[in-house]
């Protein structure tokens, strides 16, 4: 009996050790049978809005293309094993050192942190080697991207993966059928009317970019027009907005999109570069209708970076969100419920125009990946409503660039989109000096040929954050929504900002210096404007509160500007 209990105890210990060691392995989703005749490459992917269909296609193509290439002695060809997970960049950072995945296509990656801790391989060599399309990866990166990527120590440790923007998505079919577009005012060069089109064929206003014949024609170019639009929607029993109540992050997508577009690429990017000149609100005077502002232009450097919280675009972004949130008629009733997820919001948006029990919803606050993420409800609507639900026209909305009136033709502002994803492909440093290193680099190079970049976009509906074109046929194969986003980002005048910079202070304090919307108002902290507005605070309260909170902690960065 005594012996038996000892044996059982030892077995228990062995089971415990086994369980502990098995925890060190790869993710459970990597279940493909191993082909011992080939070299395996484990590729981890964040299972988010862009899905993994593109990677499955890439895997099949790569395995075929490299079937006759040996990456290690005694083996021929490669086997790509996909490990899909919900672990974004910050989580990957916690385990990458002990993980056996070789390549990661992920988002939310603080590249400098991964590189600084030597968790990833430098990729300079593959950026400069010619690809099968005759180009190099470096040639597909912009000069700003190269500056940011090499800021830490001159090496490139990650290559930009996908490019997504949070903001406002709208139902183009609803806008057309209900004539919710602004009309072109020929008498005033498009600059005065603030009137809606009366019939579908009427000429539409220039939109925020001030150019006719572009994606934003007929969309509100000023806050005044945006408010008129929401009023008109309410009069027509249309719900202007829906968003998730689960987290305030999504309402910040609207704030960021508006803020970036209002300030433009240069001035918005100062939030990360801490260098340049910008317009701020220098004085506010209370009036019966709110506030009137005086503005000023100031130089920005590290020592006064907190002044960026006074940029005009930040205030007007807050004003817009405040306007939306303080009138329950402007948003779907469940949008403030914590149980209402972003998937629920997408479903409500997709169903609302078709389901007769619902009021149509005109706009969804979400990222530019939403349609791919909402493929299930879209498929269900097609099943339930037939042709009415097919080929729906959704679009990504450029936001206003002025307070009142309307942008006149030629008087607009080029669109600035904010890619907030921090999405990169990186190679695990554990592959260094192993046969996997060559294979991993070959695979990444293969993923960045024009052909495969195009495949990525036509499969996922999303753009890669590098330079490439789609053929006319490929563009027409995209869904109307993906086409709308592609047309916006592919417009030569559009600027795409991202939260990156070669600034030393930003590199070192990236987490703390991310675009902040938290505030302190009368000794009460608010995580986001969303929660402050729900607590009856005004846009100006929050504007001042963000400044106060940012200023209070700025001395933490003193080492970067005390000469």
């Amino acid at each position: 009996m005594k012996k038996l209990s000892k044996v059982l105890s030892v077995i228990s210990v062995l089971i415990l050790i086994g369980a502990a060691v098995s925890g060190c392995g790869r993710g459970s989703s990597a279940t493909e049978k191993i082909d011992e005749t080939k070299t395996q490459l484990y590729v981890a992917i964040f299972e988010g809005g862009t899905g993994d269909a593109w990677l499955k296609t890439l895997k099949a193509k790569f395995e075929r293309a490299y079937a006759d290439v040996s990456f290690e002695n005694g083996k021929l060809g490669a086997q790509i094993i996909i490990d899909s997970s919900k672990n974004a960049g910050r989580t990957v950072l916690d385990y990458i050192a002990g993980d056996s995945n070789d390549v990661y296509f992920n988002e939310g990656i603080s590249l400098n942190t991964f590189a600084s801790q030597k968790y990833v391989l430098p990729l300079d060599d593959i950026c400069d080697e010619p690809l099968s399309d005759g180009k190099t990866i470096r040639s597909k990166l912009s000069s700003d991207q190269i500056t940011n990527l090499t800021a830490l120590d001159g090496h490139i440790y990650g290559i930009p993966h996908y490019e997504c923007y949070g903001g406002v998505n709208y139902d183009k079919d609803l806008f057309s059928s209900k004539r919710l577009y602004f009309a072109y005012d020929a008498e005033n060069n498009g600059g005065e009317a603030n009137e809606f089109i009366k019939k579908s064929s009427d000429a539409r206003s220039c939109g925020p970019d001030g150019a006719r014949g572009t994606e934003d024609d007929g969309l509100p170019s000023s806050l005044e027009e945006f408010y008129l639009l929401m009023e008109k929607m309410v009069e027509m029993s249309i719900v202007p907005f829906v968003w998730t109540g689960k987290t305030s992050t999504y309402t910040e997508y609207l704030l960021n999109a508006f803020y970036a577009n209002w300030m433009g690429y240069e001035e918005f990017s100062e939030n990360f570069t801490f260098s340049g000149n910008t317009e701020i609100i220098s004085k506010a005077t209370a009036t019966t209708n709110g506030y009137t502002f005086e503005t000023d232009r100031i130089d920005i450097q590290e020592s006064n970076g907190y002044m960026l919280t006074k940029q005009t675009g930040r205030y007007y972004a807050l004003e817009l969100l405040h306007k939306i949130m303080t009138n329950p008629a402007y948003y779907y009733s469940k949008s403030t419920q914590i149980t209402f997820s972003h998937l629920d919001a997408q479903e409500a948006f997709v169903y609302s125009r078709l389901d007769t029990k619902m009021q149509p919803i005109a706009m969804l606050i979400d990222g530019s990946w939403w349609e791919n993420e909402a493929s299930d409800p879209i498929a269900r609507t097609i099943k339930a409503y037939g042709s009415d639900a097919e080929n729906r026209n959704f679009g990504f909305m450029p936001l206003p660039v002025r307070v009142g009136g309307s942008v006149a033709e030629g008087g607009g502002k080029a669109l600035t989109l904010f890619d907030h994803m921090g999405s990169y492909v990186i190679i695990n440093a554990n592959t260094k000096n192993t046969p996997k290193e060559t294979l991993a680099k070959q695979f990444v190079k293969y993923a960045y040929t024009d052909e495969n970049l195009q495949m990525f976009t036509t499969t996922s509906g999303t753009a890669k954050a590098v330079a490439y074109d789609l053929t006319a046929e490929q563009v027409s194969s995209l869904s109307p929504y993906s086409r709308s986003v592609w047309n916006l980002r592919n417009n030569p005048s559009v600027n795409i900002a991202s939260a990156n910079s070669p600034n030393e202070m930003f590199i070192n304090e990236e987490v703390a210096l991310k675009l902040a919307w938290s505030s302190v108002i009368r000794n009460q902290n608010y995580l986001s404007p969303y929660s402050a507005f729900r607590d009856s605070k005004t846009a100006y309260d929050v504007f001042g509160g963000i400044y106060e909170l940012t200023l209070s902690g700025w001395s933490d960065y003193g080492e970067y500007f005390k000469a």
Partner: protein
Amino acid sequence: MKKLTGRQKTKIKSAAFYVSLVGLPVLQFCIFYIGVNLNSILLAFKAYDMGAGEYVFYGLNNFTKVFRDFGTLAYLGSAIKNSLILYGVSILVALFSTFFSFYIYKKRLLGGLFRFILFLPHIVSALVFSLIFMYFTDEVIPFFADNLFHTAMEGLISNPKTQLGAVLFFTFWTGFSTQVLMFSSSMSGISDSVIEAGIMDGVTPLKEFFYIVVPMVWSTLCTFLVVGVATIFTAQMNLFSFFGTSAEYGVYTFGYYLYRAAKLAGVSDYPYLSATGLVLTAVAIPLSFLARFALGKVGPHAD
């Protein structure tokens, strides 16, 4: 070579068995307790140099920042307030749960059923149970309010005004059962002869509770209250289950603040968090000893 005797062989086998059984837990303790905590303490005096890719000595600067933030960041004050409310309510619930445990211990009407119902939250995982509670308070209660009383009502978790109360209620509802099980088990260890002697002396149930049962389970109650003090700054109040990392500052507890901060932190932020942890430990240790001393002095004694 000298041959081992049977006694020596047995000794070696016993030693090998002992090492195989205890080795792993000891190793785990050394790495994950001593190593991690030692590293954490050292980290509080360092800062991360992104260029060099390593932590460098930073003196007491992290502590300076922590003390400054305690004085300037309003939400830290709110976190302390909520942590103390959490503990205060837990004391009230502990007192109530001893009453209830007594009811179950005395096997009064439906006592067994109550025990079963109270144990239910522990069968379902905390995350799932918090989701059920969230849907109930945000969907079901407003639905009934609307249909039965024609009153538009916001969900109790969604509404910033009722959020803290709802989360507190959930925490104590789920915690209540643990306490009841703990106290009723402790009460069941009381000798029947003691109770019978009391009954023969004519004690009423109330007197039985205050003069016999409470003194007999006082050490269990004390343990619960002292452990509560020690965890004032680490109790999360289930906030992560409800809100992930997006809980509003108004409902923060210190436990949630630290957990969230560590989850979202970059490598540069860990030293500051380590310093915060050390400061809070420095507060919690004397508080725990003080609570233990005070409870030992003021409480009833079994003799």
